[in-house]
């Protein structure tokens, strides 16, 4: 599947899950900041992506915490004073290579980490996973 086809499928998923307009679902749109996704929407998106990209011979299964950052607070070494530590940033980069953290690096505020996830992040995630 080409990246363009993946993007079109992701667009459809986000239209259905978030009630967003097609023209607003651009590659650089943030799921939370631009498309108003809330936490339960992430689960909805995961379910829909699994359904969309599964094929009879090859199920597309997304593990908890694989696509979206989760349970960051459970490890005190990752977050201090509401900000990601160096160790926390290293963990995020390792777990989520599909997300561009370059702008987030400046603030590191844990309550803004979800806003770093863009439509592009989803396309990258699926592209990597389908090729794996």
């Amino acid at each position, binding site marked *: 599947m080409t990246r363009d086809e993946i993007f079109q499928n992701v667009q459809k998923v986000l239209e259905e*899950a978030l009630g967003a307009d097609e023209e607003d679902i651009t590659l650089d749109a943030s799921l939370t900041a631009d498309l108003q996704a809330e*936490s*339960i*929407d*992430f*689960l*909805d998106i995961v*379910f829909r992506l*699994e*359904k969309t990209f599964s094929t009879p011979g090859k199920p597309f299964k997304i593990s*908890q915490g694989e696509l*979206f950052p*989760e*349970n960051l*607070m*459970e490890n005190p070494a990752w977050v201090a004073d509401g900000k990601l530590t160096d160790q926390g940033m290293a963990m995020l980069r390792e777990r989520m290579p599909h997300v561009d953290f370059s702008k987030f690096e400046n603030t590191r505020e844990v309550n803004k980490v979800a806003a770093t996830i863009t439509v592009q992040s989803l396309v990258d995630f699926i592209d990597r996973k389908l090729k794996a």
Partner: protein
Amino acid sequence: MRWMWIDRIVEFEPRTRMVAVKNISLAEEHLHDHFPKMGNRDAMPVMPASLIIEGMAQTAGILVGTVNNFREKVLLAKVVLARIEADAFPGQTLRYEATLDRIDAQGAATIGVVHRIDPATGNSLEIGRVDLMFSHIDQNMAGLSFPEENFVFSDNFRTILRTAGIEHEG
């Protein structure tokens, strides 16, 4: 019994689907306010669509709860789609058919079809769709903690489960 918007579970296939019915009665007080006589317009008691969504949420929520023997606190988190295309009146029966679409540790998605049955004719008419998402709130992303006791599946639910022959181990 308060805030129960289903009367009886009539079909249940574990992990798959649940069907419940709700008989609409003119004795229900909310029908007198929905809608009262106003000016020249006669009163028109119809089942509020919001309570039809609640009825489906209770049916689908129990279905989701059964998957983990009611150990999870299952809360309605998102109305994905709600489309009610015809009114339902006192003396009619609503039939809520909930199908489990997806479930994992964090929550579940359900598909719901609403029928209206008219006992005068026996006819059943599909009047809407209500698709929902539920969160297993102890597993949710916010990392909050909730009381030990399962306040979702409380005594109100036990009667309806018992009459349907469903075990409540939570």
